[in-house]
Structures are given as C-alpha cells and as structure tokens.
C-alpha cells in the first residue's frame, strides 16, 4: 500500500481539520472549495452560504437533517461535483449549511489516511 493524493489540513481553527478540494459547478458558475471532511455526515456535500452565492444556486427543495443538537431544516441545491483524484464527476444534491462539508457518500469505497502528525488527509493506494 502507498500514499496517493494528499490534502493539507486547514489550520484556521485548532486543532486543524482535514479537507478535500472539490470543484463545484452550477449551470453558469464554477468554484473550487475545500470542505471539511465530516465522517459524521452521511451525505455527499454540504455547501456554505458564500459558495451558494458565488455559484448563484437556487434552492430546489428543503429537508430536515439531524445534527448533534436536534433537527434542522436546510435548503437543497443541485450541483455538479468534480474531484479527479477520486474519479468523481457527478450531479448531486447538496445541502445548505453554515460551512462546507464533505460526507461519507464521497469518501466511501476508498481507504484513507488521517495523518494528524503531518496535518494531511490522503488516499491510500493499493
């Protein structure tokens, strides 16, 4: 086994947290974001308000989600996600949240290295 593509932890808060870079696009706009990796999130992508604005996303629905503090209602958006290192190019629903998150739906079927010592989150290759 080897270490493939790595993404640096974001150290804007302590302790730093793992991120993955993804390109998100709407019908007319494109943005590259580095959402926080949230293994407690069973969806694919949560997108923050600023990115919603940048991408000019219009909501296509609303749904209840379960958080640590209870149930919350969030907006739903249709986005295209591209992450070449994970061979992901897909159209999916993203939920609107305070901060952008990558969930288990995008992480599954891969082996990951959470390297807190070196502050990196990496794909493990066969």
């Amino acid at each position, binding site marked *: 086994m080897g270490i493939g593509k790595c993404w640096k932890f974001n150290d804007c808060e302590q302790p730093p947290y793992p991120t993955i870079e993804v390109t998100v696009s709407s019908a007319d706009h494109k943005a590259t974001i580095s959402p*926080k990796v*949230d*293994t*407690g*999130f*069973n*969806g*694919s992508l*949560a997108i923050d308000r600023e990115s919603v604005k940048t991408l000019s996303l219009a*909501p*296509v*629905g*609303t*749904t*209840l*989600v*379960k*958080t*640590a503090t209870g*149930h919350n*209602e969030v*907006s*739903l958006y*249709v986005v295209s996600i591209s992450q070449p290192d994970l061979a992901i190019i897909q*159209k*999916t*629903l993203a*939920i609107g*949240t305070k901060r952008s*998150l990558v*969930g288990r*739906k995008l992480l599954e079927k891969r082996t990951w290295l959470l390297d807190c010592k070196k502050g990196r989150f990496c794909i493990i290759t066969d």
Partner: protein
Amino acid sequence: MMRPFLEAVRTFKLKPFRTADLVENLGYATGYARNFLSQATRQRLLVAGPKERKREKTFMVNPSVIRKIILKGGREKEELIEALGLHSKYLGEYIALKGFEVVDHDLNLYTLGERIFSDVEGQDEIVITNVGIPKKIITIEI
C-alpha cells in the same frame, strides 16, 4: 391568511370553488369568505378558476404557491404537506412535487435527486422535500 388558505387546500385541492363553497364546507361567514378570497387572490395564493355560471366567479389554489411554501420551509411547509394529505401515504419519505402532484418519491434523498434532476427540463417547477421525519435522514455531526 395562511389558515384559511390551508383549509382551502385541504378541502378543495385542485378543484375550483366559489364563495358559497367556503361558506358551506368551511363554515365561514360570507363576508369573511369574500374578504379571504379577495386578499388571497391579491397575494397570488389563489387564481381565477373557470366560470361555471354567468357572473359567478370561481377560484383555485395557485399551484406555483406550493413550491414557494416548500422552499420557505418551517411550520407553513409542514401544515401544507399535511393539508395536501401526503402524511398518510409518504410519511418518512422524500417526495418530488410538481404543483399538487407527487411526481416521484423515495426513502433515499440522493436516489430521488438523481432521478429527478438527471434531466435539465422541468427542474424549475419541481421541488423536493421530506414528509415528516425521514426514515433515512441526513445526519451531520457538526
């Protein structure tokens, strides 16, 4: 305004109705019914229905309002879904609504989203939402 509107949705759904129908079916006083119809039409919650007889106006719930209320969320959304009679059939599921019509439903939000939004056409009219607490709810740890 929302209370009588939701009552009208619950009672008449897609069917056109007259002032007299509000009086008969919902027990409203004629003046109250007329006032509601006038305000709800101004707010585009209701639209003019077909004329059954000469000089007798009918009204219908504006289907585009359904999408607006769902997108706004909150208590009004919950009450609207209940008024549309969707709890009994789709409780715990995600639904795709086009006006009054449930065009698709699924226990899995992403599966439903893939089916509905794989085509570009018609996206502007469809809205996705939950009915009650989803059995396969999205969880976020933080």
